[in-house]
């Protein structure tokens, strides 16, 4: 098992390395949208095309040989020197440090609420299959996986902001973090992110638990005299946790990352999503890259945790294969 964990850790490092290298290759091989706009601007201002291009390349270190650039890029990545954000006139890492608390503020509660409620409702549905509650939960889950996050956010703003006036139409970042006002303006984004992840969790935990509801060992537990609460929590939920852990960490994290990105754009929350969005609009390559890589690292680490959780949760796992 130790050997397995060591190998899994090693693979995480290798995967990160490969992903960084691939991203570098991709960026090197692609036309630089920022360069294009810079050069166009210089030419418009009466500058020489060639000169503008060269000055841009010099400024970004693009005149160096490829290998040199790759080395600098990798060293920069590892030492957390992620470049300079032109549009914000600050280091990329600084911009990220300023932005992340805003994302965490609503994404964390959303993640917790959706996990706890989603799994609980899914279990309830599975153990009360074909009941009215089960149908209602299924309908709700279909609704949740089908509604586009960004559109749902706009609807919230329209209904609760514009028509009812309960919530602000835009996020006010000058409000103190720990204030009722901040809580009030974060309710809607939290709900949107929660909805998209809770629906997936409900569906998956229902499907998983269904495989165990009629399992023979659950009947054994009943025959031993276990009450229904004990059967559900100890004999259905616990074994279901093994397959569930794969979605709880990996997929749900993904859903939350995506929907928070969109939600921030809709509600104007100055978190990582909006940082990334603005970087794209304003052609800030270094910042775009960084804000894409961050969720990727989160996903890699999530995958690692997921696999480690598996080894803890499932006594049957064999460590022979990766």
């Amino acid at each position: 098992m130790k050997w397995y964990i060591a190998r899994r850790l090693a693979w995480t490092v290798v995967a990160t390395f490969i992903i960084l290298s691939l991203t570098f290759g991709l960026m090197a091989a692609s036309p630089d949208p920022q360069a294009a706009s810079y050069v166009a601007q210089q030419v418009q201002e009466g500058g020489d095309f060639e000169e503008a291009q060269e000055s841009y390349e010099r400024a970004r270190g693009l005149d160096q040989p490829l290998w040199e650039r790759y080395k600098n890029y990798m060293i920069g990545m590892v030492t957390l020197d992620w470049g300079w954000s032109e549009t914000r006139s600050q280091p990329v890492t600084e911009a990220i440090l300023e932005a992340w608390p805003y994302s965490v503020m609503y994404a964390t509660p959303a993640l917790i609420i959706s996990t706890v409620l989603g799994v609980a409702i899914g279990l309830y549905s599975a153990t009360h299959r074909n009941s009215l509650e089960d149908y209602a939960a299924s309908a709700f889950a279909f609704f949740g996986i089908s509604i586009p996050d960004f559109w749902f956010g706009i609807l919230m703003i329209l209904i609760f902001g514009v028509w009812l006036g309960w919530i602000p139409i835009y996020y006010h970042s000058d409000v103190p973090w720990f204030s009722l006002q901040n809580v009030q303006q974060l309710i809607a984004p939290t709900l949107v992110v929660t909805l998209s992840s809770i629906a997936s969790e409900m569906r998956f935990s229902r499907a998983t638990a269904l495989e165990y509801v009629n399992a023979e060992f659950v009947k054994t537990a009943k025959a031993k005299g276990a009450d229904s609460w004990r059967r559900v929590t100890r004999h259905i939920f616990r074994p279901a946790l093994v397959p569930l852990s794969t979605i709880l960490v990996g997929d749900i994290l993904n859903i939350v990352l995506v929907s928070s990105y969109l939600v921030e754009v809709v509600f104007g929350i100055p978190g990582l999503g909006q940082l990334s969005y603005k970087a794209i609009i304003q052609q800030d390559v270094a910042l775009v890259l960084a804000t894409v890589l961050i969720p990727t690292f989160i996903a890699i680490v999530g995958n690692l945790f997921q696999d480690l959780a598996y080894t803890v949760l499932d006594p049957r796992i064999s460590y022979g294969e990766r």
Partner: protein
Amino acid sequence: MTEPLLSIRNLKTHFHTDEGTVRAVDGVSLDVDRGETVCVVGESGSGKTVTAESITRLIPEPPGEIVDGTVRFDGEDVTAMSEKQLEALRGGRIGHIFQNPQGALNPVYTVGWQIREAIQLHDKKAKDKEARERAIDLLDRVGIPDATSRIDDYPHEFSGGMKQRIVIAMALASNPDLLIADEPTTALDVTIQMQILRLLNQVQEEFNTGIVMITHDLGVVAEVADRVVVMYAGKVMEEGDVYEIFENPSHPYTRALLECLPGRGEKMSAIGGSLPSTTSPPDGCRFHPRCPYAVGDCEIGEQPPMYAVDDGDHAVSCVHFEPGADPSVVLGEDGSDAVGGARADGGDETGGDAR
């Protein structure tokens, strides 16, 4: 005699499904005394498991429902019990052993945990340490070698036979008065089967436990049964002393079953046809569509009542045994052994070669 340990009367367990009401058990009666082994036999799908699981209401409700009948255990009516009382009964005074030991143990807990659970559910005072000691004792008793070190192993680290022993250990955790064993050896190798049956026999002798043994293996019946109940399509066809059933099988269905037993009569002269529909069973005797001796009377009305075959408690649900009718239609001219070479082995342990 006083009231039997378990007494089932006219039990009807139905399942309400999309395809209609499945009458899995449709009026079954049987008694089990302390220290007695009653075997319930019949081909697959005849309602044996549902009967067994109705005793402690293990059947899933819904879709299942006990629509009629009573189950009395040690003088108390189980069908009227609350869920709390049932939970005390299950695993407390009545232990269950299931067919498939592979699935009967929860894969994510150690066997020690699972046996301890069985102990502590009924002995709330037992501390973890004490329960663990008792679990080791139990494992020892059911013949798990090196119980002390194996108690922290997971089910997948045991063989099928070992798992069944563990399931038995759990069923014995609270020294039950009644054991319900649903085909406990069907999924096991022949040699292991023998060991498990011996184990159950030992337990019975030690604690005077009543055993309901479900099986479709007549070899097992010959091995362990005191009395036999033959079921078909949710009904009891014949019941009686094991010696009587083997020596003097009376219902055509029982006789057909016995003929299927290898080494006896025709070589696996499988009964023609198949079980009738469980949602709309035929009128009259449930077996008549497949019965070679069926007459007009067999096709109308209800399943015939249990007619006594002799002075003992051997009884059969067949119109040919109605007082005044002629049983030789079924039994043949000499009125005795038409099956040929029948041999009742009773509880004789060496009789395993009947298979």
